[in-house]
């Protein structure tokens, strides 16, 4: 299920400045634990953002992204009261979705 994301959307005119903070270990699969065993890869594969149910942003990422990553993007045509829903899915099939109200 993953821990909650922290999502912030600041309106500047009709453009929403969105910042998402995600809690994820983002293991590369290259590291070893103290006993020498490889720590299995565990990273976010896909991120999707929807504004009132309409996809506005999509990203495919991999191991190169840091632990507890931050993403920032802008959405044109947003207004106060819009529902912004963000979902990530990782390589183990784990998913997490959080939603906020823009300008709320």
């Amino acid at each position: 299920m993953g821990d909650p994301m922290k999502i912030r959307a600041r309106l500047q005119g009709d453009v929403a400045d969105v910042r998402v903070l995600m809690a994820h270990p983002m293991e590369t699969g290259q590291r070893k634990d103290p006993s020498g065993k490889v720590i299995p890869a565990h990273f976010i594969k896909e991120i999707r953002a929807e504004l009132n149910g309409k996809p506005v942003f999509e990203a495919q990422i991999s191991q190169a992204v840091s632990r507890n990553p931050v993403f920032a993007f802008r959405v044109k045509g947003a207004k106060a009261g819009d529902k912004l829903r963000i979902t990530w899915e990782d390589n183990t099939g784990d998913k997490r979705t959080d939603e906020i109200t823009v300008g709320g």
Partner: protein
Amino acid sequence: MRHALVLCAAAGLAAGLAGQPAVAQSDDRTAAEFDKFREVLEEANPAELWELKGEELWKTRRGPKNASLEQCDLGLGPGVVKGAYVQMPRYFADTGKVMDAEQRIVHCMITLQGFKYEELAKAPFSRGNYTPDPVSIVTYVAAQSREMKIAVPQSHPKERETYEIGKQIFYYRAGPWDFSCASCHGEDGLRIRTQNLPNFTKPGAQAARSFIGWPGYRMTGGVMHSLQWRMNDCFRQQRFPEPGYASDTIAALLTYMGVNSNGELYRGPGIKR
């Protein structure tokens, strides 16, 4: 080829000697760039993830007594979190001593929720994907003092006494390296490698660097750390015996540095390299 190398080295040396002020200037520029970097980081500080987690832990009924921490008195009355962090350590009449934020939270977890000190002290510091609950809770509590002035009280005689004890610990030289806190943090302009060391004996902005930015998210390892961890690590670096978790020794040190930080603006949980 070898010739060219020697020439280069000589040129470098000459530039270095002639350019004393230039060196200082580039140091300033480096520091300014680091400040810019920090600003960007602070806008998106993963510490907020622990704020969320800490808030949940604060409000959820947990422990053998199945109670939340909402009756925990952080000095401003039971359940009052806003502004409590910048006024700690402070004197608590119920325990008869001066306690710092994490020590007080641990006290509440024991008295209100029925947790055992031994259990909490077993692995009190963050590591890998593990964050102890008190660290998350401290992060939440600290965030409720964001943009407030540091005002560690000194009105009770115990608080003044604890300040003096903290000062003594700060200056206490011991261990195989004959070290004290003051060896690194008692003078202006010192540094370890590229790290500038703030002078904590100088009240105001310098000393406040012991307070501001903690608890902090450490990018190395991606973990959240509280001042309990930082103090423990200072003791380790000095080759001192390890202090007890949430002990009075730490509370006294934090009182000394906290009072010296008074008047400065606290910016909430920080982010570190």
